[in-house]
């Protein structure tokens, strides 16, 4: 025993409720801003090619983290908003650990012509199908409603 007394009455006051609530505003950054502004006007993505290691980084970055060099403006390239599903999982739980109304098919999609990928939701309720390797296309919001966030990609199919 490390104390002289401990809680022995289970009905006594036991916990104190509180929060750490705040709202968060994330500027999309130098590269992110360019990426999302492009997405607002076009139906394609931007990627960046490192001039040293020639990797095509997706999503677009300001710098290549492996070579640690800045990526110049002319190395920005346009890539189609489509790709192949590398991995997928059928998620049944929400963040509270409770069952969602409908399971969601979450996937990691390799974007064409790049060395990168993106997380996405697959628009399907076929929970038996093997989606690996399936070609998918991003479905975007109508141009008028786009706000310049990842939410502009509604889902993939």
């Amino acid at each position, binding site marked *: 025993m*490390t*104390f002289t007394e*401990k*809680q022995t009455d*289970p009905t006594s006051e*036991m*916990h104190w*409720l*509180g*929060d*750490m*609530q*705040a*709202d*968060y*505003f*994330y500027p*999309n*950054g130098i590269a*992110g801003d360019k990426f999302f502004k492009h997405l607002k006007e076009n139906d394609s993505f931007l990627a960046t090619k490192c001039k040293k290691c020639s990797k095509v*980084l*997706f*999503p677009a970055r300001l710098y290549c*983290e492996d070579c640690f060099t800045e990526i110049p403006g002319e190395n920005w390239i346009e890539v189609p908003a489509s790709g192949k599903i*590398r*991995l*997928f*999982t*059928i*998620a*049944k*739980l*929400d*963040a*509270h*650990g409770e069952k*969602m*109304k409908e399971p*969601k098919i*979450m*996937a*990691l999609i390799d974007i064409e012509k790049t*060395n*990168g*990928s*993106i*997380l*996405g*939701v697959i628009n399907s309720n076929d*929970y038996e199908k093997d989606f*690996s390797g399936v070609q998918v296309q991003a479905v975007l919001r109508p141009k008028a409603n786009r706000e310049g*966030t*990842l*939410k502009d990609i509604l889902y993939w199919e």
Partner: protein
Amino acid sequence: MSRKVCVIGIGHTDFNSITPGMEWKEIMYEACQKAYVDAGVNPRKDIGSFITCAEDYWEGFSIFDEFVPDQVGALLRPCCTVCGDGLYGLGNAYMQIMTGYFDMVAVEAHSKISDLLTYGDIMLHAFDPRFERPVSGPVERPKYGGSPEYPSESPKPLVGRSSEKERVHPYFLAGLEMQHYLKTTANTEEQCAKVVVKNKKNAFFNPYADYELNVSIDDVMMSEYLFKPMKKLDISPNVDGAVCFVLADDKTAKSLGIEPIYLSGFGWSSETPWISTRGMDALYAKNAAKMAYKMANIKEPKREIDVLEVDDRFSFKELQHIEALGFARPGEAGKLVDEGVLEIGGSLPTNTSGGSLGVGNCIEATGMQKALEIITQLRGHAAKRQVKDAETGLAQSWRGIPSGSGAVAIFKRG
């Protein structure tokens, strides 16, 4: 003459799914007090420096470091927080001792995760806010009308959980990683299930474990798919608990008359935080192990290491880490489970404490819980789960979803 660093005292609380009778301060105090008594030292006089391993959001304070010194005995002493797993703390303690500034350093790590009501949402909060997090569900921005102007009212604390925000549980990423692992190696879901059976059984022999369970492979295979191919029993449930170590240089240990257990090597490494370009092959564990083996002068880990504790927050992670640490060729860890090599009586006993699957996922204390088991084994105090003639042990941990960071520590009996 170069110093050596050794562990001279260990202390821990019981691990329980909830600890309603104790404040976070009190579970820390209990673990630390036990470690100090174990080492036979007075923290107010003998210990030079203190390290706690914690992350703010797990605890519920913007600056958790504030709420540390009193209960670890660090009043008006050097004390700091390392934002990482307990093994990172051990590594930093090692370095502090090697500078010659201190002879004795205490490292504490704990989990009071039952205080946190919104575990899933906090973990989502660790995803990249621009390119990853929004995928999980609604981005709420109703309070201030969608523009960052200065609002006239303070946000009201939410009471209870809001049900309309249906965000996906962040463990979906573990589901993806498991699929990657099964696809790229020859290992199967059954082999993962065997890991669950083994670890939950080992936990029966560990008095402080909280999730011991007598299940068969069929039981595991029949449990529900939550993040296909990941099943309910593949996931380690959360647990509260605290662990404290006292480290010292070899001279101090000898003067205290303690038979030292050396921290002979450690390493850590981080992969890219971008899920979009990460390999998902536990490269972090490979790099960390390389560093630790070099420091501990280990050439053939398979032969030289007697007992092993690897991170098994998800069952497939145990197999993946065994391969990354060099105990099996890629894709062959499953065979070791099939052959019973990883059992307590096998040639490579792994997660004898029950691991995270058996003890529970103790968040930032995971690495410390694993190191604790290694020390217990090397001291020969592991009772029914004792591995015979354990001389060298390895503990490895991973920082959990969504990170690609992990650490390795190697302990040797003196």
